[in-house]
């Protein structure tokens, strides 16, 4: 795999999408996307179906032609290069192995098309079979393999010609959870070992977190969030990303200065937010696991630490989820909140109890602009 390893300077842009658009009639499936993909990085397009992530991948592969915009690889335009000349590897959702060929011939196909010598083909296919640990299945037909094995053949077939970029279109979607996690681990190791640039498409945020160095979150044909899973989760750039990734509590507040505000009449401290003026409506977001719910006695025993907020609410439901527990509460003003804690920490309250919900000011993100649809989980698709 030396050819893949070479020229692998980190942080060098390999692929650039510039003002990329794909319109179907009046409908913008991909809406003016700009994105730089670094050489050797594992980047995931995350979004619900219809968010434009797969269309963008298709344009990278060459199966869809952009309505306008540029796709550059090493500063060379790919837009007019047909897919079979792009030298890109791709793993499809349903593996898409050639049913009439053996595992070995499937993997050899790209090399045979390139008219490599028989000995070279045999050498490279052997190396690939070893890489994906399918040596003893070389003579089987795809139909005689399990889903996980088929996917490994598909990966080997996509890597054998040492493409610069590997595209993966929800490749693990059809597999069950356990196998999916195993293959995710394999894939991460493979990426680390080969240093190839991978662009991965999924609607599964846990998968995106587990695999990628950076995630691009797609919604309505646009990239609405780009960054590491950690940053996107801890500091979502907007309310949509906050609500789309993981779970979130939103509080509608009115700012009284750029460091304080009020929620349903109760004063709150908020992060210093440049540009926030007194009287402005704002939204603060607290992750359920960052909030605490304390019973009246606990709250009386433990004074509110400096830099924390507290609001009163009534418990509506307590759920035991094994490793963790969640407590759903409603404030006097009708705002619903969820508090999540590890089961080991205990949650002694009952539905109907009055509790104090607390969170650290530093853990609450502030948004001054949002659309109501951003706050619902189902948003993102057209």
């Amino acid at each position, binding site marked *: 795999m030396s050819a893949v390893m070479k020229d692998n300077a980190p942080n060098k842009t390999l692929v650039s999408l510039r003002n990329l658009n794909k319109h179907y009639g009046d409908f913008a499936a991909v809406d003016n996307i700009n994105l730089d993909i670094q050489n050797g990085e594992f980047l995931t397009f995350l979004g619900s179906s219809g968010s434009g992530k797969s269309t963008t991948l298709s344009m990278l592969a060459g199966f869809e032609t952009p309505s306008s915009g540029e796709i550059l690889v090493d500063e060379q335009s790919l837009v007019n290069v047909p897919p*079979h000349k792009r030298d890109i*590897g*791709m793993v499809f959702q*349903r593996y898409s192995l050639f049913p009439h060929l053996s595992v070995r011939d499937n993997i050899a196909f790209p090399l045979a098309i390139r008219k490599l010598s028989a000995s070279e083909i045999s050498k490279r296919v052997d190396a690939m079979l070893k890489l994906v640990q399918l040596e003893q299945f070389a003579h089987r037909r795809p139909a005689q393999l399990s889903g996980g094995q088929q996917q490994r053949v598909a990966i080997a*077939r996509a890597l054998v010609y040492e493409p610069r970029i590997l595209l993966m279109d929800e490749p693990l979607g059809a597999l069950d959870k356990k196998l999916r996690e195993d293959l995710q681990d394999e894939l991460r190791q493979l990426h680390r070992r080969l240093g190839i640039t991978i662009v991965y498409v999924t609607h599964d945020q846990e998968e995106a977190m587990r695999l990628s160095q950076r995630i691009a979150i797609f919604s309505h044909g646009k990239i609405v969030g780009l960054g590491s899973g950690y940053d996107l989760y801890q500091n979502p750039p907007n309310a949509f990303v906050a609500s789309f990734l993981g779970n979130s509590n939103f509080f509608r507040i009115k700012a009284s200065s750029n460091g304080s505000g009020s929620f349903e009449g109760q004063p709150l401290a908020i992060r210093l937010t440049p540009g926030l003026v007194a009287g402005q409506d704002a939204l603060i977001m607290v992750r359920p696991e960052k909030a605490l719910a304390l019973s009246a006695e606990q709250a009386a025993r433990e004074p509110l630490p400096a830099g924390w907020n507290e609001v009163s609410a009534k418990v509506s439901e307590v759920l035991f989820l094994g490793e963790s527990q969640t407590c759903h509460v409603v404030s006097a003003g009708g705002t619903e909140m969820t508090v999540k804690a590890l089961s080991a920490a205990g949650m002694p309250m009952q539905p109907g109890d009055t509790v104090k919900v607390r969170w650290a000011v530093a853990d609450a993100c502030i948004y001054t602009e949002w659309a109501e649809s951003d706050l619902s989980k189902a948003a993102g698709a057209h």
Partner: protein
Amino acid sequence: MLLTPNAMGRPLRFGLYATTGVIAAFLLLPILFIVLLSFGSSQWLVFPPPGWTLKWYGQFFSNPEWMDAALASLKVAVLTTVCAVALGLPTAFALVRGRFPGREMLYGLFTLPMIVPLVIIAVAVYALFLKLGYTGTLFAFVVSHVIVALPFTIISIINSLKLFDQSIEDAAVICGASRLQAIFKVTFPAIRPGMIAGGLFAFLVSWDEVVLSVMMASPNLQTLPVKMWTTLRQDLTPVIAVASTLLIGLSLLVMLIAAALRRRNPVSA
């Protein structure tokens, strides 16, 4: 299911079996009858045959008129098969993959010969070929047979093409194959059972076609069913039973091949 054989009562089950048996006998007995007659010794097609003989087979194979007809039938059927597949393949691709207005209508048009009464097609084609002076030629036979065989071939190929996951072809393209290479190296092998089944259908349609063939036939060129028809109008000889038996035998063989292929590849046939 409410009406599985096990769930229904014994009398009902017996009745069902009996009905099925009667229908099967009704359908199969004429075939059995004609096969037995071809081995019978009576010149007047007496049933049951007073004795058994291969005499009529000898007459069939030694008579150049019958042999010519059989050979013509085989030639026409093979050419029809080749043409139907060659035309049906691109047509099926266009109908499945194409995104153009009127696609559904075109599909209807291509399958129309299955619905239009055969005799109407026969008269129309006859009138055309009469005008062009093509009646009685191999060309006329093949063209007229292709008209009625093509819908079967197209439908068979369409079905296997619809079942074929096009992303497999895309995978070949991204692996470096041009679209045409991908179709030849990946798509055709994958839909081969459908192509073969479509070809066998075309063969069968042509092999026992009589309405069109009677119109196209000339004294120099006639297919086996036409020869049977004309012979039948003059006298009743057991050689006709021999021709029928051979006709049925080959059809049966073709159907067995089709069934065997379907079993080997249950998805795409």
